[in-house]
């Protein structure tokens, strides 16, 4: 197993996503929630953070994407959407959770 990282900050506003990637080990999962879901958008100035992070699996909370009007066809390839039940499963199926606020 590996760790689950949660990121709730817009990558345009704070470096939490960058940190989560930098300090995570191969095999880690990174879940984007709240304003963190902006990091899942393709075609932005920071898309390469997620698109270029090999060996990490990315998830985004669907409820938070929808609230912000981000359609699924705007997402970076490979980002998987979860609901809160899926969030719980991710927590259970990883060694521990690291919140990068």
């Amino acid at each position, binding site marked *: 197993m590996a760790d689950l990282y949660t990121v*709730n900050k817009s990558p345009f506003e704070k470096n939490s996503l960058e940190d989560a990637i930098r300090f995570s080990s191969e095999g880690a999962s990174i879940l984007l929630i*709240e304003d963190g879901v902006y990091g899942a958008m393709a075609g932005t100035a920071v898309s390469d953070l997620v698109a270029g992070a090999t060996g990490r699996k990315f998830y985004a909370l669907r409820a938070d994407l929808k609230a912000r009007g981000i359609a699924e066809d705007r997402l970076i390839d490979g980002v998987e959407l979860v609901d*809160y039940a899926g969030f*719980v499963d991710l*927590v259970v199926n990883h060694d521990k*959770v690291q919140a990068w606020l």
Partner: protein
Amino acid sequence: MKLAVQVNEGPYQHQATDSAYHFTKAALEKGHEVFRVFFYHDGVLNGTRLTTPPQDDRNIVNRWVELAEKYDLDLVLCVAAAQRRGIVDDGEAERNGKDATNIAPKFRISGLGQLIEAAIQCDRLVVFGD
């Protein structure tokens, strides 16, 4: 699995409290044990019974209370954080000479040791904050 949840922000100002609630609810519905929700920093402001949110918006405090009633959930407000921010139960009112209380039902005020204990006892600690 046994989970502990930490909430660092107050209601409405930051979505962290919403995320913590929905996560906790989903975990309980899936049959996991939520050992404790520990409210720290401005998170203690989730535990006031004096809020009156607009009718067309969610009632964050009541949601916690109802979840606690349904699942016998342990909602703990950190005493030091609560004193700084004016969340008071009967005991605190007496100790600190306050003429009113504002704590919501199902919440209790206790020490930081309750967070440490939760982290020791539980399989996972999940933190929600700003």
